[in-house]
């Protein structure tokens, strides 16, 4: 019988931002689909919690700051070849355009854009990306589809990330390596704490969503699809997954 095209059995998947929220759900759901997962994040304790939530054997964790080039390179050098990479680490801050500081800009861009580009460069340079691998970038509807006030740098960072994924898709297609981004709308995670919106405003915002806000698993299942052979004809796409909010 043919293998289930949605299965990740026998695949090694690297997930950044796996110590929390969407990245954690992606790591867990990938393991449930059969993958061996290497999880990255900064916070040791939260990352260890993710590791212990993974199904199956052979998973590994590596706590590091993605913006520390040396630590990143050490991690990459010690890594087995990967069949999938999910870039889920990301941050934001809220400031209207006239208050965006150089600090806000540097910090958000370095985590949301520079780190995934640098990790990809190192993985390619050190020949750690296996043939027919799938690269997934967690972007956002805020990156050019549905603006939110106060999210100027975040929007710019996510727009940049989705655009970069398309170039990568073109460059790597000769080796059947695919690159896609996912643009979710609002999901309740720790990220929302840094946006400084209160519960009442969030509840009102959620009313705009035909299917309500999403859960980390809703995004994770899209990522599992993109990591699997079921999406083997899909590259350079930006999968919008938004509970219908952009219809309204």
């Amino acid at each position: 019988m043919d293998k289930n095209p949605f299965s990740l059995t026998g695949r090694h998947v690297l997930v950044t931002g796996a110590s929390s929220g969407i990245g954690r759900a992606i790591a867990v759901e990938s393991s449930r689909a059969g993958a061996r997962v290497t999880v990255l994040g900064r916070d040791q304790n939260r990352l260890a919690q993710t590791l212990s939530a993974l199904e199956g054997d052979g998973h590994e964790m590596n706590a590091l700051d993605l913006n520390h080039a040396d630590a990143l390179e050490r991690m990459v050098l010690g890594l087995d070849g990967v069949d999938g990479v999910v870039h889920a680490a990301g941050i934001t801050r809220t400031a209207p355009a006239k208050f965006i500081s150089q600090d806000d800009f540097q910090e958000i861009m370095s985590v949301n854009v520079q780190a995934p580009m640098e990790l990809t460069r190192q993985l390619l340079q050190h020949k750690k990306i296996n043939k027919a691998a799938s690269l997934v970038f967690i972007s956002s509807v805020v990156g050019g589809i549905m603006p939110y006030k106060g999210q100027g740098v975040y929007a710019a960072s996510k727009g940049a990330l989705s655009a970069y994924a398309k170039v990568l898709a073109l460059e790597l297609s000769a080796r059947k390596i695919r690159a896609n981004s996912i643009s979710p709308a609002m999901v309740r995670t720790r990220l929302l704490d840094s946006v400084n919106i209160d519960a009442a405003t969030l509840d009102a915002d959620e009313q705009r969503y035909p299917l309500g806000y999403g859960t980390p698993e809703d995004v994770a299942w899209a990522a599992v699809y993109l990591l699997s052979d079921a999406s083997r004809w899909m590259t350079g796409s930006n999968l919008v997954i938004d509970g219908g909010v952009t219809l309204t």
Partner: protein
Amino acid sequence: MDVNEFVNAFAAEFEETDPSEFTAGTSFKDLGEWSSLTSLSVISMIKLKYGVIVSGLDVNKCTTVADVFALVKKSNG
């Protein structure tokens, strides 16, 4: 921390409303220009100038500029 200085900084976040309309007693949410963006601007100004993070909800609970000032003073210890 001076309340008049705060009122001036608060007024500076408005583009259309004349600064002379602002006093400590102004009910700012009744101003035509009050919006989610002016709220974000006021929050950013408070963070930059006073090093204090207040939430949109906190600000929305206030009636007058003086109420917001009290919030900043309280958070500033």
